[in-house]
């Protein structure tokens, strides 16, 4: 059973530049953890520390519960796929895949077997004699993956492996990746800035921001229960509406309308309301609460329209709403949202207000 963990990991360059701040993570056999966040959030640094390409200022890296912090990358039995694929340009595909195995002193026969196994999955058989320069982007990506697979490592590390592919190919390779890694059991840590990759591939997602883990959860919970304002705004496209609203009693004031806070809250003076554009719809008779507004921008996304609305009675407040493309509406629009799809955050701490109990 392999597993990988980091304990209280910290990387400090200067007092102000701290790419990784006291991070602890654990990935078990069969799990696929994605580190996601904006650039500069520390996700790549964390991955590189796990790989041994960088040294932490404090903290430990554990593989199979053994402290490997002081081991060289080559001694950690890991495999890594790089954004640029990092194939050796002067070696052909076979040599690229074999080079790490040869360094471990593996015999030719076993190397051949392993490469054959990997090729059954990746279909690289016709390319073995080619140099990387003669491969397409997608083929290079597969070779990079093959080079990782043949090592049968204790942990797979992938650093933005899809970023260099064009959009069309990316979707297909993403699906391939999912299948390939579901078929094996070693833990995978995957770094990306693309939330779709994070949501589709992972069993667990860690959202990182400014060196801190903001939330570590299943993709579903990251989406349905964002732990704070940052996660709420980072995950989901188009972005969640986040409105800072004053409260009157147990109601939040949004323009001319009132939205009742859940009973469990001690009514705060101010609150942040989060609601995803896909969770707002045009009100039908009997819906509550109602928000009236004026449409000022319509963006056609194909399968739906992204409609921007100024809320009546609070002209600075903008709501972005995702409406099905077969629907029509007037400039003056009345909207509604289901109370169970609303997210409430503390204005000061930006943390999610508790879901259960007071």
């Amino acid at each position, binding site marked *: 059973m392999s597993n990988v963990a980091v304990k209280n990991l910290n990387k400090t360059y200067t007092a102000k530049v701290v790419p990784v701040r006291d991070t602890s993570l654990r990935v078990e056999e069969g799990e696929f953890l994605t580190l996601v966040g904006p650039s500069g959030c520390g996700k790549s640094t964390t991955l590189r520390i796990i790989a041994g*390409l960088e040294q932490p200022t404090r903290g430990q890296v554990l593989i199979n519960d053994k402290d490997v912090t002081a081991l060289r990358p080559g001694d950690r039995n890991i495999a890594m796929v790089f*954004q*640029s*694929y990092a194939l050796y*340009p002067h070696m052909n595909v076979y040599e690229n895949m074999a080079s*790490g195995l040869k360094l471990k002193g593996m015999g030719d026969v076993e190397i051949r077997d392993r490469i054959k196994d990997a090729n059954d999955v990746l279909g690289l058989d016709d390319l073995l004699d080619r140099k990387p320069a003669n491969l397409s982007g997608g083929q290079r990506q597969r070779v990079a993956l093959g080079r990782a697979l043949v090592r049968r490592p204790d942990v797979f590390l992938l650093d933005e492996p899809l970023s260099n592919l064009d959009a069309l190919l990316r979707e297909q390779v993403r699906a391939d990746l999912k299948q390939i890694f579901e078929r094996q059991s070693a833990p995978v840590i995957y770094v990306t800035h693309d939330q779709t990759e994070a949501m589709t591939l992972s069993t667990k997602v860690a959202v990182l921001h400014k060196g801190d883990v903001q939330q570590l959860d299943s993709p579903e919970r990251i989406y349905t229960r964002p732990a704070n304002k940052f996660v709420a705004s980072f995950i989901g496209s188009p972005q969640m509406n986040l409105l800072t609203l004053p409260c009157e009693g147990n109601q939040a004031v949004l323009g001319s309308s009132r939205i009742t806070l859940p009973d469990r809250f001690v009514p705060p003076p101010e609150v942040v309301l989060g609601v995803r554009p896909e969770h707002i719809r045009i009100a039908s008779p009997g819906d509550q609460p109602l928000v009236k507004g004026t449409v000022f921008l319509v963006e056609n996304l194909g399968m739906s329209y992204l409609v921007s609305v100024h809320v009546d009675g609070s002209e600075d407040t903008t709501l972005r709403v995702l409406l099905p493309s077969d629907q029509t509406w007037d400039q003056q629009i009345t909207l509604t949202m289901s109370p169970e799809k609303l997210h409430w955050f503390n204005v000061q701490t930006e943390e999610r207000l508790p879901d259960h109990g007071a």
Partner: protein
Amino acid sequence: MTSTTPQSSPASSTPSPTRPGWLSKQLILAIGAVLIIIFSLAPVMWELLTSIKTNEAITSDPLVYFPSWSQYTLQHYWELLVQNRFYIYIFNSALVAVTSTVLCLCIGSPAAYALTRLHLPGERIILGVVLVVTLFPYILLFLGLLEIVRAVGLANNYLALIIPYTAINLPLTILVMRSFFQQMPRDLEDSAKIDGYSTLGMLVKIILPLTLPALVTTGILAFIFAWNEYIFALTFITRESMKTIPVAAAQLAGTTLFDIPYGPLAAATIIGTLPLILLVLFFQRKIVQGLTAGSVKG
């Protein structure tokens, strides 16, 4: 002439051949190009012509620019190679230049790599010193080196040239190779580390094969500098059979005061410059690349 047909233009990337002033610009460029060629080649061509003229043609009045058939001769080359055994000097020059170039690459490129990627404390100071050292004229070094050469008993030993030549080319090698290493994608090295290469193994198996073009560039420059060096060769080598071409050729002029052997001298110049002209013809691009990387980016 106001013809309506567009000017039949030579293939060039000038955007609009019909623009006024275009023709005069091309004319100026053509004249400039011809002047540059004459400027660069004339002295060498004159040496070449002198080297294949008979003695009578060389000293005739008026001057013979283009000799008639009877005035051509290979006698000067024959004299030089057979009588003066000039091939010995060619061999010496080649031996010293090639050995020092190889040595310089072997020592310089690992150092350049370490100074590019391994975060050595004080690397900025080392690089600064290396940069300044490229400016030192050899005359500042020959006195101290002479003492060392005498103390160690290296006089009339090829090492007395090979070691200084290695050294004078080291700064350039380090600067040029460093500028190449800086352009190498870091992922490649990271990938090699994860594959389990040691730093040295990675250098030999991955990095140096990839920087082969840079090694060629640097090697050509080092070879040129070593082949051309004069003051050390003049000072540290006194045995006739070990001299290099520049020294041997220059002393040819000094041996006889009255009957200066113009023909053989010209032939010696041509023999000594020919390898370099060939290098330039084949590797022009690399030489320019190396020179600019070694000085501009440093």
